[in-house]
């Protein structure tokens, strides 16, 4: 009984820590993105509030909270109100299975540094990332606005073109770890990160995960210069903020996924494992910000064509070849 209570307390403490760290990281990623993009465009980015603009996220939140929460006429009210929460919630839930450090020994107990070590963690992540699209589609549909609807349709079209390639790119990773559990996948990368073992899978994964994140090379659902704001055209105040925060939490999730699947998780020399993990996550986030500063947006039929005609055949080929190699070496 006492043991159960202790486990429960530990899980709650871990949850609280992850929530705090992830949410503040998301807030500061917004600032980091604005500053890095600014520097790439030869301007400073926000630098007025606090030293170097460090208080800017707080001011943004205050602004968003105090703004009017507007529901357009003839919108589907409950779905409209519910959709942004879905995006932020699924993004936050993804962290439950991400291992960010090796198990810690505290008071003679072995504490796994992951909220919930599911043995199907990878499938759980996929399920949540597909569910996150519902937030976008429902928000776009419920807004009763043509631009929002177009954004929602685009995000669905995008979903069917990257999801398959994303899943197939991770099959070799699962093969090399013999498990769907993220902890096992990280443990299998103790000597080599998967990046070196499966470089093609890494490239396919990065492209499809960029499409999943709905960030700039593939931000058709919110393409500002074609369909106003896409799915969040009609949103205001903190509901827009939830979409926004969800996007940045998603960026961290993506960083964590890339780190766990390909960059060797918390493995790394000299520094403590948590530091390695956070550094890798931030590096991947920087890659995505960098891509946003560099890449133009393709049309969404081009993304469909690219997904179906290039990524999926390549991913299938990769699965077959690496499967054959594993089979040959295991015998």
């Amino acid at each position, binding site marked *: 009984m006492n043991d159960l209570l202790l486990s429960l307390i530990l899980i709650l403490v871990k949850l609280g820590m992850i929530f705090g760290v992830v949410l503040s990281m998301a807030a500061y990623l917004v600032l980091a993105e604005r500053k*890095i993009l*600014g*520097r*790439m*465009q*030869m*301007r*400073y980015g926000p630098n007025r509030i606090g030293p170097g603009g460090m208080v800017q996220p707080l001011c943004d939140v205050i602004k968003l909270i105090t703004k009017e929460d507007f529901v357009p006429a003839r919108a589907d009210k409950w779905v409209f109100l519910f959709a942004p929460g879905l995006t932020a919630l699924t993004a936050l839930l993804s962290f439950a299975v991400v291992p960010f450090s090796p198990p810690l020994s505290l008071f003679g107990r072995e504490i796994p540094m992951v909220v919930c070590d599911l043995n199907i963690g990878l499938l759980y992540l996929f399920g949540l990332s597909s569910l996150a699209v519902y937030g976008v589609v429902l928000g776009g549909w419920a807004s009763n606005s043509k631009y929002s609807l177009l954004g929602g349709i685009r995000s669905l079209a995008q979903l069917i073109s990257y999801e398959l390639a994303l899943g197939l790119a991770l099959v070799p990773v699962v093969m090399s770890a013999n498990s769907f559990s993220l902890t096992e996948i990280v443990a299998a990368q103790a000597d080599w990160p998967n990046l070196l073992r499966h470089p093609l899978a890494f490239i396919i994964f990065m492209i499809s995960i960029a499409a999943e994140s709905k960030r700039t090379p593939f931000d058709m659902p919110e393409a500002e210069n074609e369909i106003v704001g896409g799915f969040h055209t009609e949103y205001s105040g903190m509901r827009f903020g939830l979409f926004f925060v969800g996007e940045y939490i998603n960026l961290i999730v993506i960083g964590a996924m890339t780190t766990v699947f390909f960059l060797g998780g918390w493995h790394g020399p000299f520094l403590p494992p948590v530091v390695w993990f956070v550094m890798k996550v931030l590096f991947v986030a920087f890659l995505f910000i*960098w*891509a946003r*500063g*560099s*890449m133009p947006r393709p049309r969404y039929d081009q993304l469909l064509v690219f997904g179906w005609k290039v990524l999926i055949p390549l991913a299938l080929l990769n699965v077959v070849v690496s499967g054959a190699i594993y089979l040959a070496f295991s015998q």
Partner: protein
Amino acid sequence: MNLWRDIKGTFQPFWITLGYLFKKPVTIQYPEEKRTPPPRYRARIVLTRDPDGKERCVACQLCSAACPVDCISMQAAEAPDGRRYAAWFRINFARCIFCGLCAEACPTMAIQTTPDYEICNRDVLKLVQEKEDLLIDGCGKDTEYNYYQHAGVGVVNGRGGNEDEYGPVDPKALVP
């Protein structure tokens, strides 16, 4: 299909943006750093005086007529020596679009634009400037031009007495 070109085109922009990341931004940080606008910059409008220190404005209403947003208004008056002046002269800077058409229309170079661009104000009524706010003690862009030395109703030199003028024509002497 040129695959090599496409791959190169995908990675080149990354290299370029990375280069820009380490360059100094070109932004001018406004309240701390100010740039000096060029002398012909069109910002706050002033009324100038001629080299003798008298008002140039003759209240001819041409600036007011030229103004596309009707932000200039005035009342004409005449001094005992025949010199016309504006009894009151008002520019509503809340309306002004700083197009400079008033300065172009002015025959006496009285109304001129200046590079003083920091005139914003939270109180709209403070943007309505009267003659005493507008009138400056100087000639502005042309330090020599004096309207009454070239034309006008004989305020300085008597009718037709200016250097580049001739006197009134006697219509009876014009008979062929």
